[in-house]
């Protein structure tokens, strides 16, 4: 008899145990110990890795240090994807802790955006929220908010890392407004979602998709995939080729999309869905 709020809470407090190791070619003064950390799924890598940086700086010379970046098994990790998404997309079926390699040199300009300061993250985060609200409410809610309300959302995200119920409340006090919709419409205008594929050149798929069909049926996760990426849906006769992962779980395909959007969206208000190959036993 659990409560929907518990879902929000579980999602909010999601953590991934991570082991950071320094890239072997980095020049150090003495051997760098790996660094273990619980990374909040909802946050962004560059926002929560100050400790990692501090840890490795202790063994390095200042002149050897450029902008820090990360990879996992050779894939550069995009800081502007939420951490949980990066994990689901690249490391779902690997052993924990998640082993991330830390680089201070040879920034992969082609793959990654620079992140000189937190204000860049804030700008990225706010633009995502605005985009999401444009889809959900024609931007009406976000435009009605004041500057300080925007700030509160951002502060909320920053505070994801704190294991505090107050911060959860603080964030949701504001985020709730973004999750409202007129009862008679039964949902948002469009669901802000992005589907990520590991095996694709496209970074992600994003389309206009309504939570309710024209004939009044509730759209489900399955309906969305059928429309957008039908390959991900297993046929009756064959075994599952793909896993559809959100926040490290595989919701059933009949889960209503509107509910997912309200409960399993990231703080940027997008539903980030990873479609990954099913592990072959």
């Amino acid at each position, binding site marked *: 008899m*659990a409560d929907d709020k518990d879902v929000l809470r579980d999602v909010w407090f999601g953590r991934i*145990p991570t082991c950071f190791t320094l890239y072997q070619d980095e020049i150090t003064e003495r051997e760098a110990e790996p660094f273990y950390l619980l990374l909040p799924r909802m946050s962004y890598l560059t926002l929560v890795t100050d*400790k990692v940086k501090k840890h490795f700086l202790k063994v390095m010379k200042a002149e050897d240090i450029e902008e820090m970046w990360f990879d996992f098994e050779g894939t550069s990790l995009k800081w502007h994807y939420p951490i949980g998404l990066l994990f689901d997309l690249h490391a779902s079926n690997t052993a*924990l802790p998640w082993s991330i390699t830390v680089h201070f040199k040879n920034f992969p300009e082609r793959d990654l955006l620079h992140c000189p300061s937190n204000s860049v993250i804030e700008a990225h985060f706010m633009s995502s929220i605005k985009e999401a609200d444009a889809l959900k409410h024609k931007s009406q809610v976000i435009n009605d908010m004041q500057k300080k309300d925007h700030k509160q959302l951002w502060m909320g995200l920053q505070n994801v890392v704190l294991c505090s*119920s107050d911060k959860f409340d603080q964030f949701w006090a504001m985020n709730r407004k973004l999750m409202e919709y007129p009862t008679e419409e039964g949902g948002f205008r469009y669901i802000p979602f992005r589907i990520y594929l590991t095996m694709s050149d496209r970074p992600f798929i994003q389309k206009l998709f309504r939570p309710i069909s024209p004939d009044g049926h509730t759209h489900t996760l399955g309906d969305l995939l059928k429309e957008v990426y039908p390959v991900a849906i297993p046929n009756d006769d064959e075994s599952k080729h793909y896993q559809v992962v959100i926040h490290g779980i595989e*919701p059933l395909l009949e889960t209503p999309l509107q509910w997912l959007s309200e409960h399993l969206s990231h703080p940027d208000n997008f539903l980030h869905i990873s479609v990954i190959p099913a592990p072959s036993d």
Partner: protein
Amino acid sequence: MKAVHLTLVRLSLGLNMPVSLLWAVDVYGRVYSLSTRGQQWEQCRDAVLEFKRVTAVQQCCWGIACDHHIYLNVHSSDVPIRYQEETFENQRWNPMDNFSDHLLPSDRWQWSNITGLEHQPLDSFFLPSTNWEWEGDWYIDENFGGEPTEKEGWTYAIDFPATYTKDKKWNSCVRRRRWIRYRRYKATDTWAKIPSEGHSGPLPDPFNDISCGGWEISEEPRGRLSLWAVSLQGKVWFREGIHHHSPEGDGWEEVSLPGEVVQISCGPGDLVWAVLWEGQLIVREGITRDCPRGSSWVVVDSPNPEAGAIHVAVGDNVVWAVTKDNKIWYRRGINSYNPRGSGWIGMIGEMVMINVGLNDQVWGISCEDRAVYFRQGVTSSELSGKAWKAVNVPRDGDIRSHSSASSSSLHSAGCFFSGEVRAQSVMSEDSDTKNGPQRAVLEVGACPSSPPPDPPPVDPDAPKPRIPKVTSDSFISEMLSDRKVKREGPTTAVTAGPSIPEEEASLREADAKSPPLALVLSPSLSGGPGDPQWSNVDLEETQTHLAVGPAGVRGDTADTCSLSSVATYTLCQEEPYGADEHPLWAWVSGGGCGVDCHSQLNWFNSATALSSSVQSMSLSISPAQTAAWRKQIFEQLSERSKREMDNFKHYEQAIEQSQSVWVKKGAMQWWRDWKPHKWVDVRFALEQFSGPEGNQDGILFLYYNFNEEKKYLHAFINEVTILVPVLNDSKHTFAVYTAERTKQRWPIRLAAATELEMHDWLALLSVSCCDSRGIQGPPSKQALWSVTCKGDVFVCEPSPSLEACPYPTPCDQMFWHQVGGHLRLVECNSLGVVWGVGYDHTVWVYTGGYGGGFLQGLASSTDNIYTQTDVKCVYIYENQRWNPVTGYTNRGLPTDRYMWSDATGLQECTKANTKPPSPHWTWVADWAIDYGISGGTDREGWQYAADFPTSYHGHKTLKDFVRRRRWARKCKLTTTGPWQEVPPIPLSDVTIIPCGAQSIVEPIPLWAISNKGDVLCRLGVTLLTPAGTSWLHVGTDQPFKSISIGGANQVWAIARDGSAFYRGSVTAQSPSGDCWYHIPSPVRQKLQQVSVGRTSVYTVDQHGNLWFRQGLTPSCPQGSSWEHISNNVRKVSVGPLDQVWIIADKVQGSHSLSCGTVCHRLGVQPMEPKGQSWDYGIGGGWDHITVRGNSFEAPRVRMPSLTPSLTASLTDPLRTHPPRRPLSFRNTEENGNAVRC
């Protein structure tokens, strides 16, 4: 977060409303009901006859059918209406025949009633009517005053009349035994004809109006109703003897009148108004508990001298009237002292009739479109409401009977109406021309019970169709309308009704054809100014039609159709059942319809009317919450947390919370620890910080001055065991306990300046305490639940070592936190099914949420929280002393108690200065004499005694010099909590099997006692549907008061006579068992409550003794005898491990005494189910505990060296021997009972 919480609560409000019905009759005499949960009018198919009028109350509906007879429709209930007939068989001993039926001539009859004064052989008992049936044959009662008799059931005495004993003695010369037979009312959910016989033969003339009410006049006998009826000749009749065991009543009594009445209305209480033919109104006075018929009439003038009243409707505190110009009037200044009120206020809208239902809610039928309207915004502070809103739902037969619809219209209905009235019961087959539209309406309506005919031929020469006979109110209103104002006499008018001269009828037909448009659609009738509800008629449109009026009627049907939709509701134009299918109502009765201005009804918007989604909302968890996808997400998330977090807790967090300490400060008052105790101003602060393991911790500081010196007192948040709100009428206080303070019976008592401030602090402290102990979310299935005497609900998460032996978790260290809601008792089991019962006996099932009440934000779930209400009585006593000169007066001796006091007499409590128990409660009624007090009362409610304070009796004797009577006033509390109502039967006790059912679908046995003492067994209780589906009534020979079911389906119950009963053969297959085994109570003790665990059976008697049932074995489940365990016990709860917990009555601590303390029996082991001693926990005002959810077997440690002294040392010596006699506790500090009893 507060806002989120509130919106969600509001969304779910409508769901936990018990279902009740609004009744209505359409102009064709078909009876419909509309459920508060439904979205369409359901036709009462059972009614073979057409009805004129109905009047409903919650349990039944009365009606007048077109045969002018009165019919009664009693709603079926899970608890049947049964009546116990009894008679006594008397015998006398003589040396020849031994005991035989040869009685002495001076003796009573061989078969008699209990007094012996009436001859009552078995065959003299007859069913009161054909609506009853016998349940079985006569049998002998073998229970005598709570003790079983010998097989034959005889009781012996020296002579008639004397005291009887169950044992035969040497001097027993007579004996008697009691025979019982039950009869059952069988005519439920059907219209049963009530013979129209007065006490002196059949009534002379048929009935014309009827009104039912009066159930609030007295609660005993239960189900008592007043039924008033008006005959065609204008006489008024009162139905005698209607109560629960006699739903039909006994007979009619004529009530004398100052004139001739056309219509009458009776409210739930003592308001009865009637309308006279001449247009004045009369008010009944002198209606009391002893005289529900009242004594006299007073005349009140019509609101409008030009137009007399034609209709009146009364409620609890309101009177509404309709004058013959269809204007509506509200009567000002009505209350129980002044049933006449003080003046009329004209209201907006025009109605043909009005009805006042429950909660003074108002229903009407508009004269414009004949729709049923509901008065919005009627509250106790604004009884006249705000606006009219049309009830706009389809009828269940709408689609079916829709064959000739296209041409009928409101327009033609208008014609129909003005003609129909006079044509009542006239079969004018040979009428002149009729047009198509009219025809269609008549056709549909004429044969309500038969399938609709083919589309009628649009033939102007066709014979006039049959006109419905029933016209109900329109009959009266027309009779009184302008054409008939100068009525010669009542008789002519009456006879004019049924048999109108032909010419007159056709004259009116003619009338009807041309002016109907004006009648129905004229702008003057289109609604009062300024009321949006009434201004939906497009005037311009109407006028154009008025111009083409008659032509349109005759020829162009399409045209008419469009007119009607404009005129009635533009909303409906696209509906498949358009305006032409608009029902035309004649009568509405809301007397059984439990709505108030907050009710969420789906009646006002036909767009969603047919969707059945709302109806499918069951009491249990809504489908979305049990859906597989949802479950999957919950399971996977918790799996994810385990996978990703549980093994990595030692990892650092990415960012630590800054080391800052978070502080909240405030000013409070503190009940200081040293004497003289008093409230002193203190500064109060909560400092919070992250504990060593990442969880929040904090310290409470309380800064005070002592001898000009600044000092402080502190408490660690993780040591606080409970926070208890103690709202009373003067201060907003709460108590903070730690283990140490629980021992001392001396909490930190704090008072905030305002209620809001107190709730802020409580919510904050509560979250901090839960955080520091890692408690969040809903209570576990194992949780212990308890209730204070203020109705506050607390839960405790049991540690696995709570039932450990020999070292259980000490009781005073248990952490309790509050859950929203207000209950009198709560019962649970280890599967997480939790039921509660309120002070008003309303039944609630736990929804799986948490929080509610003042708990908000994280401490409260957002869904599963609903509004909960409770009602209780506040009592005060009026005391008088007799003196030889003036008799009883309110002047007592100087040493006497207050003349208005509380029960003890020590506190002055007048009607004016007595406030509701706390600001959460509001008065909902006025002071009324309470006749239900134990000891009985005289007719005025007085109880007599020799002096204060002694025991009181209900009649005056020569030795009595003082008397008192109890006044009661109802108050109501509204709060929120994770509870949903389980209507409709109120309960006094409930029990759920403490363990068992493994699968989700397996039914969970749940038994209950209704507030009337019926034993009930709930069907359909499962984990998914914790509310179950229906009650199964289990017959008993007397009312019961307590029940408990054990782990192996053993059901024990306590009857009102204080004896115990064991229910035989209860199994999963036969959930209600087969018969009761009578178990005598301990000698000279009346048992009060029972609790059955896995095997143990414990009972509590009325003197606070705790008894253990000895000798229970599988072959002898009834056991052999009672063994005394302890005194000083109020309630007992035995859990699935046979653990024993009680509420102890008076417990001594180091600082004070507390009444109502949670205690745990120590040393209970499988071989020693009685345990050894008590461990004392939280207390001071606790009323109820249930440990039946806790099935945590503690790891067993064998400690052979354990000596009793060790256990005893856990408690102080005083406690191991609870005081044998009630200690005097008048002088102890009130601190001991945080919640004052």
